[in-house]
């Protein structure tokens, strides 16, 4: 056991910190979930890429630095500490890319990954459908064979920032006789294809952060199938694993929130000890998350795979994030209703226990796979 960082990681941290301090836009960009804000975020993404900070953990040939998982954690810590912009490219980088690395052909990797790293192709996720939310196996969008490819028809919903993206990845039912999680195929779809209609709509915070995507006989090629026909479920589960696991929520995100919460509490004129207690609990929760993650990353760095404890991880960070924001709003009292960073952050945090598998489902998974309780 060794809880110190080696010199090379400290050097990496210094380099990241210096670059971020020099380059993070001030004042902060407007929300990337509006059309104007998204454009500004794209500029930022391209600057990141230019300096090879957009995908630090990827191999250099695809635009990364071949950084270790540890350095990725360090980068995230510094990124959020610096108050850098939200990553509007994250659904591609964190959800699709791991799947392409694992299941993609060399041609697909070359075609998809560098353009993703450079924010030239912008990917959104096409999982949910009107009748299939938490229950992914209820998908009815279909893929029909045609000469040299497939014809896609159906409706996807809740695709984050779908109205601003260029490509969609998602599951379609390629075997019309199949049901549930059989007979699904994972497709990659350019959103400028004929037959695609995208309609953006508002989130809780009023930003146009969601979209519905309608597909009406959209033609794609064989090269747009990821991981094999009919294997969509297991391919997608690998992605879902990374969505639920470590990668999407690095501890640095929450440590940065806690730092801001501490500053806010210290600045309060007449500090209520009951709220102080909640602030300290928030600090503790974030510290516990950091340590739990260091333990998990040690296992991954040693060649392990994320297990059912990913469910515990997701429950922890998502409910902690809600509480941290509730505490900050409680510090604001009756003034909290004025739309500000904490209220915005609160609204965003409320999606945590819902998306990427609701926390009810995560608790089932934790109980069944981590503790071995019987399925009902």
């Amino acid at each position, binding site marked *: 056991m060794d809880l110190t960082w080696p010199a090379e990681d400290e050097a990496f941290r210094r380099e990241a910190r210096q670059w971020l301090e020099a380059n993070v836009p001030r004042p902060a960009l407007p929300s990337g979930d509006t059309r104007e804000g998204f454009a500004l975020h794209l500029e930022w993404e391209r600057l990141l890429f230019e300096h090879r900070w957009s995908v630090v953990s990827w191999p250099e040939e695809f635009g990364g630095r071949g950084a270790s998982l540890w350095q990725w954690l360090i980068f995230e810590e510094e990124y959020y500490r610096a108050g850098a912009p939200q990553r509007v490219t994250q659904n591609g980088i964190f959800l699709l890319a791991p799947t392409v690395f694992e299941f993609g052909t060399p041609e697909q990797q070359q075609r998809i990954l560098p353009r993703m790293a450079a924010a030239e192709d912008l990917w959104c996720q096409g999982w*949910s459908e009107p*009748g299939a*939310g*938490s*229950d992914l196996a*209820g998908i009815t969008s279909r893929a029909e064979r045609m000469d040299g490819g497939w014809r896609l028809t159906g409706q996807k*919903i*809740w695709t984050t920032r779908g109205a601003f993206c260029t490509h969609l990845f998602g599951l379609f039912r390629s075997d019309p006789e199949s049901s549930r999680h059989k007979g699904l195929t994972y497709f990659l779809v350019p959103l400028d294809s004929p037959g695609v209609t995208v309609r953006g*709509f*508002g*989130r*809780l915070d*009023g930003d146009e952060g*969601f979209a519905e995507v309608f597909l009406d006989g959209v033609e794609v090629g064989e090269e747009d199938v990821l991981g094999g026909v009919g294997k969509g479920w297991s391919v997608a589960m690998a992605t879902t694993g990374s969505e639920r696991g470590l990668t999407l929520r690095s501890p640095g995100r929450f440590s940065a929130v806690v730092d801001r919460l501490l500053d806010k509490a210290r600045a309060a004129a007449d500090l*209520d000890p*009951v*709220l102080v207690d909640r602030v300290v609990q928030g600090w503790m929760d974030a510290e516990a998350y950091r340590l739990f993650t260091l333990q998990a990353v040690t296992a991954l760095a040693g060649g392990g795979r994320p297990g059912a404890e990913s469910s515990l991880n997701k429950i922890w960070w998502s409910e902690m994030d809600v509480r941290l924001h509730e505490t900050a*709003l*409680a510090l*604001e*009292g*009756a*003034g*909290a*209703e*004025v*739309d500000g960073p904490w*209220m915005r952050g609160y*609204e965003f945090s*409320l*999606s945590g*226990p*819902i*998306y990427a598998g*609701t*926390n*009810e489902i995560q*608790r089932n998974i934790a109980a069944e796979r981590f503790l071995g309780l019987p399925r009902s």
Partner: protein
Amino acid sequence: MHFAFDDDQIAVRDAVAGLLEKRAGPAFLQQAWSEPAGPAVWALWDELAGMGVQGLVAPESAGGSAMDSVTLALVLAEAGRVALPLPLLETAAVGVPLLAAAGDPAGILAALVDGSAVLTAAGGPAGWAPVPGASRADWFLLDGTLYARDEVEIEPVASVDRTRDAAMVTPRARGIPIGDESDATNATNATDAGALASAAVLVGLGRALVQMTVDYVKDRKQFGVPVGSFQAVKHHLADATMHVEFAAPAVWAAAWETDRAGELDDGHVRRSVSLAKALASDGAERAARAALQCHGAMGYTDDYPLHMWLKRVWCLAPSYGSARWHRLRVGRELGLHR
């Protein structure tokens, strides 16, 4: 001992509920969201006045109905049920009773009752707590003092609840004290009136949130069965409804006691009001969390009306004293803080 509503109370409640059901459905609220202080929204103000709602507890001499605070609380709960986007609690349950008790020092009671004047109030210290209905209001009650529109500075703010039409309002004149007591006591009286009224609204909001969610989860299917058949969803909603339904009697009791403030110990009535507001804030916040979680992504979009109820709860729960603020006050009353 008879803890149930009289026929009169029920009749008034049902009449107002009927009007609101007809006129203030989700589409109306959506309209208020798009155009907060629009004429379509304010047209309902006159209809409410026509039914006597603003003047429910005003004396007959001012054109009011001289009904009791329990009736008013029942009506406010109905206003909460539809998330009424108008400053009704401020006019009818803060301004009217306090001005009536103070002998109508500004001579505006009749105008408030007939709907021609609008009063609003800050649910906390002026300049810190936003004031709803600010772009239309004629009178502003801030820290226990009444100001005319030309006596205040109004700075619109972006409330998370757009239907609130909120602003930060700060006095620029001396104003008219809203009672004969010290400024602090006048302010406390205003806080208590607002706490009781907002508690009633929060009960209505909480009930509506539970009901909307029950309707949704009965209908919405996942894994081939209604979402509402999962035990986790049932338990979320059982907890939510429990906390709302245990807050409700505390609100009615506090309203009943408020009308008997002369006979009862002052501290006792304040304690009952704090009980009502603390329980109602907590209950509505629990209902809001459960409602959003059980709706899943569907609740997390402004395409679907649920969010307007959530946001109203977020605004009212900390107004006129958060649950914690009221517990602190009760603690002092119980001799626990030294």
